């Protein structure tokens, strides 16, 4: 038990060194616990419609979180163990048995881990209500989430992290056990050899990154799977080579510019960075890649959330629509809307007719295919009907059409992903129908429940087509605040049940936003954990290196480097160490999300900038923490 006491004392004594690591561990455990408790909270999942999405989403999230925690804790522990080799050597020299040193280290890790688990679960309990409320808000629900403690999630968190800590502690035991005394004393002495780098590989790394950007915007469209694989491979390899060869070479070549290199701060920062880059390039590249993945995920999630309205409109363009029954029903619905707190903005009945259709010159879009009959169909609509709806929906009215022209309504149409249909012919051989597409509009006009692709034709032409195809009338209503029309929707749905089927904007919007809200929630929290963990690793690595360089800074100060200049060199070094991976990560993610906005044909600049800036803010905090702690560390010598 004496060893146990020593272990406790060691933890207390070294607490300032462990603090950052400990806090990020607690944070990781807290998020894991939150995910887990949202997964197991039956009261919560019963209250919402998409409970299945919730279950699978949070199962996946806890799995990712657990996997990441393993890597983070394992890496950090290895790092701390290596740093303490000399201390272990000293114990050994004083006659402490290796087995005892191993046990001592085992106790230390396990105690620290247990405290972290308890603190993580407690803070998770404390914050879980807040987090659940955030999720509820994201999913646009109006339910009260109580303070909840469920045993399955406590059990899950306990088991998962206990296993992680026991394994990691065992690893520490074996590390302490395996080292020979002589190694223990040599470990902290770093060999300072000049790294080799090649100009060819440095240029190649830039070409690889550039190539991956290019491929992502060209080859990707032709072959999404192989496009993605090659893009990722090129980008990842390029990023590693960039930090290993290009960055080093850049620092070396910047020495050649004597005017700037011979400035004291530049000279010192450059020389120190050359070695930092050598020992840190793997970490820098990993952070850049991890940042890119995280940012792309968060950016995508937030973009989807942001696009929920327009995506819902592509499926259900107006608030309510159903197949026309009779005038009496329409009036009844109109009355219901007027009696509600929503305002009726528009009521229209439009006629559409369905006919087999195909493109003459090119492949007919798959969306027009009826999988049962294996034939392709299109819907026609009167120009006058279109213009009435277009006015309400801000689609842009069509002035006139010639006898042979049609306007094609195709949601999500964009020229990079789809062929250009303008000027092409749509035909129906049986009825000798032939039209030319004069224009494509990338929006929907009729709920996709009733018609997928709509072609707008001249009124006189429509009268002819009407007799050939399967014709139906659609009643359409548009109201104010459609996203909050759940109650009204239920009333209307009851009225119509048995007569006809309803397509409403609210259900589409709500169902989508639930899934997307979960996605945003999970990716944002996972992203923050990734960030905090990588930031922490960066923090203690940099501080360890500054600690090893203490002697150098002392020499510099003896020669006459002032405190102010010392601060400047540290800021300069940290700026590059923190800034470069973040910038490269952001550029990668920007390119990746750009593909998304091209495919979806929307401008995602706002949601992407918002999530990227949030990311930068966290990293800036870590930068300042590191700079501040480094300066403090050096001034205490």
């Amino acid at each position: 038990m004496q060893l146990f006491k020593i272990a406790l004392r060691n933890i207390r004594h070294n607490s300032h060194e462990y603090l950052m690591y400990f806090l990020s561990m607690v944070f990781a455990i807290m998020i894991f616990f939150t995910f887990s408790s949202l997964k197991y909270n039956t009261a919560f999942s019963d209250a919402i419609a998409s409970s299945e999405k919730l279950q699978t989403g949070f199962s996946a999230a806890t799995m990712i979180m657990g996997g990441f925690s393993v890597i983070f804790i394992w890496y950090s522990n290895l790092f701390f163990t290596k740093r303490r080799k000399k201390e272990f050597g000293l114990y050994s020299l004083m006659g402490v048995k290796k087995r005892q040193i191993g046990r001592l280290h085992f106790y230390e890790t396990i105690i620290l881990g247990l405290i972290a688990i308890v603190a993580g679960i407690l803070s998770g309990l404390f914050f879980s209500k807040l987090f659940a409320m955030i999720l509820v808000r994201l999913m646009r629900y109006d339910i009260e989430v109580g303070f909840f403690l469920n045993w399955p999630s406590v059990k899950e968190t306990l088991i998962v992290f206990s296993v992680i800590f026991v394994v990691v502690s065992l690893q520490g035991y074996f590390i302490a056990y395996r080292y020979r005394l002589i190694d223990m004393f040599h470990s902290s002495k770093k060999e300072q050899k000049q790294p080799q780098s090649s100009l060819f590989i440095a240029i190649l790394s830039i070409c690889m990154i550039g190539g991956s950007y290019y491929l992502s915007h060209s080859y990707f469209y032709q072959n999404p799977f192989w496009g993605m694989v090659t893009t990722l491979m090129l980008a990842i390899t390029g990023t590693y080579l960039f930090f290993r060869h290009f960055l080093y070479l850049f620092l070396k070549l910047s020495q050649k510019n004597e005017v700037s290199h011979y400035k004291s701060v530049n000279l010192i920062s450059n020389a120190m960075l050359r070695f930092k880059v050598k020992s840190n390039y793997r970490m820098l590249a990993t952070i850049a890649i991890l940042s890119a993945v995280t940012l792309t995920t968060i950016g995508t999630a937030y973009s989807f959330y942001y696009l929920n309205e327009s995506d819902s409109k592509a499926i259900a363009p107006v608030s309510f629509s159903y197949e026309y029954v009779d005038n009496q029903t329409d009036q009844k619905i109109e009355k219901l809307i007027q009696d509600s707190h929503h305002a009726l903005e528009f009521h229209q009945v439009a006629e559409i007719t369905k006919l087999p259709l195909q493109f003459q010159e090119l492949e007919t879009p798959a969306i027009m295919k009826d999988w049962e009959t294996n034939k392709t169909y299109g819907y026609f609509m009167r120009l006058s009907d279109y213009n009435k709806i277009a006015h309400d929906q801000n689609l842009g009215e069509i002035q006139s059409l010639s006898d042979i022209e049609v306007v094609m309504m195709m949601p999500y149409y964009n020229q990079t992903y789809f062929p250009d249909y303008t000027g092409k012919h749509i035909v129906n051989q049986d009825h000798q129908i032939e039209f030319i597409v004069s224009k494509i509009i990338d929006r929907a006009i009729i709920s996709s429940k009733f018609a997928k692709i709509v072609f707008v034709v001249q009124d006189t032409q429509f009268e002819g087509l009407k007799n050939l195809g399967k014709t139906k009338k659609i009643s359409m209503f548009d109201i104010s605040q459609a996203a909050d029309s759940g109650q009204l929707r239920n009333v209307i749905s009851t009225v119509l049940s048995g007569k006809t089927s309803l397509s409403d904007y609210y259900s589409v919007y709500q169902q989508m936003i639930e899934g997307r809200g979960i996605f945003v929630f999970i990716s944002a929290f996972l992203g923050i954990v990734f960030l905090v963990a990588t930031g922490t690793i960066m923090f203690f690595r940099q501080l360890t290196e500054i600690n090893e360089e203490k002697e150098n800074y002392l020499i510099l100060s003896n020669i006459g480097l002032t405190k102010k200049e010392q601060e400047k060199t540290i800021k300069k070094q940290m700026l590059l160490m923190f800034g470069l991976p973040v910038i490269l990560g952001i550029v990668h993610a920007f390119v990746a999300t750009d593909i998304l906005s091209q495919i979806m044909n929307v401008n995602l600049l706002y949601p992407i900038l918002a999530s990227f800036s949030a990311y930068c803010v966290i990293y800036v905090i870590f930068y300042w923490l590191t700079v501040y702690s480094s300066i403090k560390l050096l001034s205490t010598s």
Partner: protein
Amino acid sequence: MKKILTARNLKKLYGTKTNAIAALNGIDLDIEEGEFVSVMGPSGAGKTTLLNIIATIDYPSSGTIQIEETQLARMSEEKLSNFRRKHLGFIFQDFNLLNNFTVKENIILPLALANKPPRIINQRLKAITEKLGIQDIVEKYPVTISGGQKQKTAAARAVISDPTLVLADEPTGALDSKSSADLLGCLKRLNQENHSTILMVTHDAFAASYSKLVIFIKDGKFFTEIYSDDDRKDFFKKIMDILKSFGGDGSAVI
């Protein structure tokens, strides 16, 4: 001759007030421009303390110290840094080279700190490395060069900015005898040709015999001083005689 350094009644006390141990107990020291002074004395005599105080790295408990016109007492740390970079050059026993810096970067550091233009830096670098015979290793890193080359690099760094005073703390302590002789020759040349004023602390009589004046201190106080008559072997003998009078047979302090 211009006075470079004037120290009066320097005292350095360690420990509590009631139980103080004096590392320096009232030392006076005068150094004139162009001198090459060695300070000798047995271990614990206060050599290194004296040097550290002159180097502005340590403070005296009492007494005054003046380098050229500057009184060193009560300067802010910022000012001291600036003073060191302008007026002092350092050579240490364990070289104190920056391992992450090339030989060239190590040498030009004081000039870079003073923000001298590249043209002047390159000129001075060329002149000094040629004088010390290290012009071929400037692009190398300290770990790849010999101890003698390291100390020459340190010497080059100490004198490149033409400091008022070069301070050397046991510069031959980590060198073999051949490299020692080589380095001391270099210091002597710098003293004679560049008129660098050098203050060297050593317990090696052989190293001291290269200087013009040797000051002996004992128990934190001035003991005696002797001047060289330009015959190094004879000077070495004289130094050894004084060291013997400290007790021990002299070889013990080499």
